[in-house]
């Protein structure tokens, strides 16, 4: 029987399937961090249980960590306590920890792929909704709550009903200045912040196949922003080339064996999806959000949709969002002054993102009214950036290159956007208060963020790219 990619991987991991019950799904790799794990470890202690398969669990500290002077003790007491708890818990339960100071430390969704832990065909979970990132390798990867973290600790399994499947096909050629972040913001704007709920989404089509692994990760990362727990892309040569030679990737005979299996991981030509959507990449402009959920996005040259054009029952919430942002109906955002630019997060903090920004800002300087933070996704990304001299370019441009962590994506550490200020951010959520109390977030690609940084206002990056070439 023909199967989708999701079904192939899912079926290979079902320990038990019984009518009327969720499946018992085996989990190959469990990633953990300091925020959503302490109560799960506590639960194990209360039940008197060990971690069933500690060697299939990897930990890092990312959500709370400072991004300056990382080797100094964390100043904020509760953050320090939470990071210390992770260290203690990992030692007690025999889990490998890439904590502060370790060369592998970084955002959990950045280190998995770069260390070769994330592989095609795996099932992976983490107490973090952006676990969908790992799907870029053709893995079933999804975020879970703390009770489920405890469940995986105790049993290496999850009780989970098989999701519905959606295929999003993106064909055609992207325009200049348009990248993976624009693709995903465009899709979310089309189908809304709830449009993918209940589904795992497979992204396919020529525009997806042409993307690098970093770009594919950006797309899968934001699947959850339309409600889909998982997003994935069939592995191909680009995937295999990325994985080969990484720290924990299979090698030698194991590589050959793994590769032979990975090559079977695609949706069969006549496989049935519960939903199929098709888009043309040529229709996508650089995107920006104007509201307080990631579905409230538009092409950067468009005007903010009017409240009166919204469905009756949504008007109240829509107006509330525009009021929070301080934006008017039908207004253009072009030329709107910006206070902060944040380039980072599990969505856009990989070396390719930093290279793209560096390439753009070379010989340019940030506008005086803007504070620019670049927060690499991991120690390895940071080191690579330094090796390539990107740090010098950022310094000359007045961009501050900080140390790795989740940082201003959710402001659990000191990196917060002040109340009322506007931040063009490469992160994934523009929720009220996400980047700091009353902070106003505009989600965009690294290029659009960099353009705002150098002009000090919302800018269509394509105009600056044309100038260079003209």
């Amino acid at each position, binding site marked *: 029987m023909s199967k989708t990619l999701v079904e192939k991987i899912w079926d290979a991991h079902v320990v038990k399937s019984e009518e009327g019950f969720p499946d018992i799904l085996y989990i190959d790799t469990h990633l953990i961090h300091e*925020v959503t794990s302490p109560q799960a470890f506590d639960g194990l202690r209360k039940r008197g249980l060990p971690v069933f398969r500690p060697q299939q669990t990897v930990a890092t500290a990312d959500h709370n960590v400072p991004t300056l002077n990382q080797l100094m003790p964390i100043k904020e007491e509760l953050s320090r306590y939470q990071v210390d708890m992770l260290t203690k818990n990992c030692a007690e339960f025999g889990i490998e920890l890439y904590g502060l100071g370790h060369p592998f430390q970084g955002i959990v969704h950045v280190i998995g792929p770069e260390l070769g832990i994330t592989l095609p065909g795996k099932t992976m979970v983490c107490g973090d909704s952006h676990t969908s990132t790992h799907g870029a390798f053709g893995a079933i990867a999804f975020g879970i709550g703390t009770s489920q973290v405890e469940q995986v600790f105790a049993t290496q399994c999850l009780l989970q009903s098989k999701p519905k499947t959606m295929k999003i096909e993106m064909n055609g050629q992207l325009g200049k200045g348009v990248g993976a972040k624009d693709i995903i913001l465009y899709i979310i704007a089309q189908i809304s912040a709830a449009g993918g709920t209940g589904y795992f989404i497979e992204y396919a089509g020529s525009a997806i196949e042409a993307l690098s692994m970093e770009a594919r990760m950006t797309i899968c990362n934001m699947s959850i922003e339309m409600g889909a727990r998982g997003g994935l892309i069939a592995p191909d040569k680009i995937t295999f080339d990325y994985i080969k030679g990484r720290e924990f990737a299979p090698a030698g005979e194991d590589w050959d064996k793994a590769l032979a299996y990975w090559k079977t991981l695609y949706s069969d030509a006549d496989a049935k999806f519960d939903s199929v959507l098709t888009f043309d990449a040529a229709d996508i402009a650089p995107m920006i959000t104007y509201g307080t959920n990631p579905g409230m996005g538009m092409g950067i040259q468009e005007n903010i949709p009017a409240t009166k054009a919204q469905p009756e029952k949504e008007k109240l919430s829509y107006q509330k969002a525009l009021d929070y942002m301080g934006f008017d109906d039908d207004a253009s955002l072009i030329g709107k002054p910006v206070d902060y630019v944040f380039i980072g997060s599990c969505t856009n903090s990989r070396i390719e993102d930093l290279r793209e920004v560096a390439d753009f800002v070379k010989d340019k300087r940030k506008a005086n009214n803007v504070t620019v933070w670049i927060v690499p996704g991991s120690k390895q990304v940071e080191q690579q950036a330094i090796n390539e001299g990107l740090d010098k370019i950022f310094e000359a441009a007045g961009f501050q290159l900080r140390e790795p962590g989740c940082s201003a994506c959710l402001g659990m550490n000191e990196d917060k956007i002040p109340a009322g200020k506007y931040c063009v951010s490469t992160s994934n959520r523009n929720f009220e208060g996400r980047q700091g109390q009353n902070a106003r977030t505009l989600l965009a690609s690294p290029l659009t963020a960099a353009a705002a940084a150098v002009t000090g206002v919302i800018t269509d990056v394509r105009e600056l790219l044309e100038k260079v070439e003209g």
Partner: protein
Amino acid sequence: MKKFTKLTSAVVPLNIENIDTDQIIPARFLKATTREGFGENLFRDWRYENDNRPKADFVLNDPTYSGQILVAGKNFGCGSSREHAAWAIQDAGFDVVISSFFADIFKGNALNNGLLPIQVSEDFLKNIFTAVEANPNVDLTVDLENQVVILNETGVSESFEINAYKKSCLINGYDDIDFILAQKDLIEEFEKK
């Protein structure tokens, strides 16, 4: 896990769509390492000014409304996987959340803690909001055994879906770990394949 069978209570209406988990419990309050105490920061930034004064116009600060049932607009609980959102709602005294649509991870987290998420039709949700607006004391009955929610004032009711296994977990107070651990031999067998 906390058991749930049947509840009759007044409701707290929150007629806003796409309420994300950052609103339910902002990230800066996720630093605790236990499950208790999150209720005081439930909807923190909608409920309090930056200087901690309660915002009088927010429903949780309005003594007119009370009860163990929270009713909210569609796509409730979207965003982050933080289970703290379910803990905060429960810690603030709610046992049921009613909406016309729930985000997946929130729904699972709620069920894993004995907080019952009930998805109703847009029409029924509107009925509830209209009824509460007219009379803040109207109450609802939630009957898990029969999978029905009743607006007692008018007798209008609607049945709701829930996975049969999850239903029995709520009624009996057992959880997924108990269920899987009882079948550990199957897991070990699977690993040998």
